[in-house]
């Protein structure tokens, strides 16, 4: 076969495979829209379920997930920034650094149900928070750490070395250099990482199973020490535990969850594109 023929064949092959990869994603989204769109309306989003969850909306679960996601961000943000600054700016190649990196890599590989059980043991029982938003947020916060720390570290390392050298040469201390040069420039990247991490956290069921989620609470949580409904768990319950559950409501709930996660990813992408466009160096 001639080189040109091989070339054309390979391009065609690679393009086809690339399209095949995208198809399932598009199908899932279309399928959800097709089946779930009919259930979506203002009332669905703003009322609590009743009649054994079969009727009404998803408001407490939706808002519960929003609260939980915010609380997770508050847990995750300082931990991730501190860890990323340490790894990117201070860490030398020693045992402590290797241990931290190993821990982060392994954290990413832990099954989510294990996070849930850990959260139950550590936060709900040992620390005595009970089944509560704070226990769930701490659990989800740890779950998001690997993603958030590694993107934050990358964002910090992407700040050109020359800025650090110049800052130090002008008599700034190491911390001033990090605070006034590195972090402001890395922040959008760090925020992108956190939002991506939150996107994952918002959709998780297993970690919140024992730590925060309630099957049915007609009222919203009053503090972070209250239980809350949450969208992924609500979906799990109505899809498997409620006989005679209308399919459209199940798909509608799934669609809302999907849109919530997708919109988080979208926001992260928009921020990232914006940084690239406005970066001056």
């Amino acid at each position, binding site marked *: 076969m001639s080189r040109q023929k091989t070339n054309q064949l390979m391009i065609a092959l690679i393009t086809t495979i690339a399209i095949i990869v995208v198809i399932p994603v598009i199908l899932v989204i279309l399928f959800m829209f097709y089946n779930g769109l009919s259930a979506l309306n203002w009332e669905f989003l703003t009322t609590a379920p009743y009649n054994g969850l079969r009727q009404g909306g998803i408001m407490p679960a939706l808002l519960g997930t929003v609260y939980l996601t915010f609380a997770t961000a508050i847990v995750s943000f300082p931990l991730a920034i501190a860890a990323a600054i340490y790894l990117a700016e201070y860490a030398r190649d020693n045992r402590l650094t290797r241990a931290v990196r190993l821990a982060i890599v392994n954290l990413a590989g832990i099954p989510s149900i294990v996070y849930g059980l850990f959260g139950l043991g550590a936060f709900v029982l040992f620390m005595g928070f009970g089944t509560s938003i704070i226990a769930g947020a701490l659990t989800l916060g740890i779950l998001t750490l690997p993603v958030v720390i590694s993107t934050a570290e990358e964002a910090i390392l992407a700040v050109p070395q*020359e*800025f650090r050298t110049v*800052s130090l040469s*002008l*008599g700034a201390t190491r911390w001033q250099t990090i605070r006034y040069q590195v972090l402001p*420039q890395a922040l959008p990247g760090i925020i992108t990482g956190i939002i991506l991490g939150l996107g994952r956290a918002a959709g998780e069921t297993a970690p919140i199973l024992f730590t925060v989620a309630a099957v049915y609470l007609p009222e919203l949580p009053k503090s972070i020490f209250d239980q809350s409904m949450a969208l992924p768990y609500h979906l799990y319950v109505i899809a498997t535990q409620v006989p005679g559950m209308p399919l459209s409501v199940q798909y509608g709930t799934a669609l809302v969850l999907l849109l919530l996660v997708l919109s988080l990813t979208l926001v992260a992408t928009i921020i990232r594109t914006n940084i690239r466009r406005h970066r*001056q*160096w």
Partner: protein
Amino acid sequence: MSPKISLANLSFTYPDGVAALKNITLDIPANEIFVIFGPSRSGKSTLLRVLNRLSDLVEGAQHQGAVTFNNQNIFERDVNVTDLRRRISMVFAIPTPLPGSIRDNLTYGLRMAGIRDVQTLEERVMRSLKQAALWDEVKDRLDASAFALSGGQKQRLCLARSLALEPDVILLDNPTSGLDPLSTAMVEDSLYELKRRYTIIMVPHSTQQAARVADNAAFLLDGELVEVGKKSQLFMRPKNKRTEDYITGRFG
């Protein structure tokens, strides 16, 4: 008059074992342009970086000997490094504005030193820009991004940024790299003006520039100090054969 900076048996070795400076002893007088020249990789830039301890940033590097500045060895434990870097300020070969406005760049070092007084800052901005011959070009757009400046303007901005600290000594690592002859002349002219107030230690762009601007000069080769002397002597009647070979263009 006692020298501004004295180097005594100064050696510097990079972590990979490369000896960049070998046993250098040198006196740098105050209020003149002291030029350090030599072929690439002869240790010129390393020498500049050691003088305000930017060399500390190289992890695992070793140094011996002493650098005396204001009657103190800069390597001693109780030396405040951030203070030292304000007193001996570095301008890099590649002009690197910090992200932010022209004014932000000029006031950065002062703000980091805790100076917040707006009037002081404004006054320093104006004076340093005038000293670096940049004032007329940027006075109407101090809040514009420093990245919008041309290459020659950035170079002078970086010079002004160091001057704003009102240091004792300015280290210039090839301050006219990538500049056209006109901008080079502008920078050189401002140096003659500046040496009245500051001690300037400079790695030149070329031997010609060294011969133009220097009061005293030192010739480095492979980390060794080959010869040091007044410009008239060093460039006209070098004592060392290697110096002569280099400045007459027989190598390097």
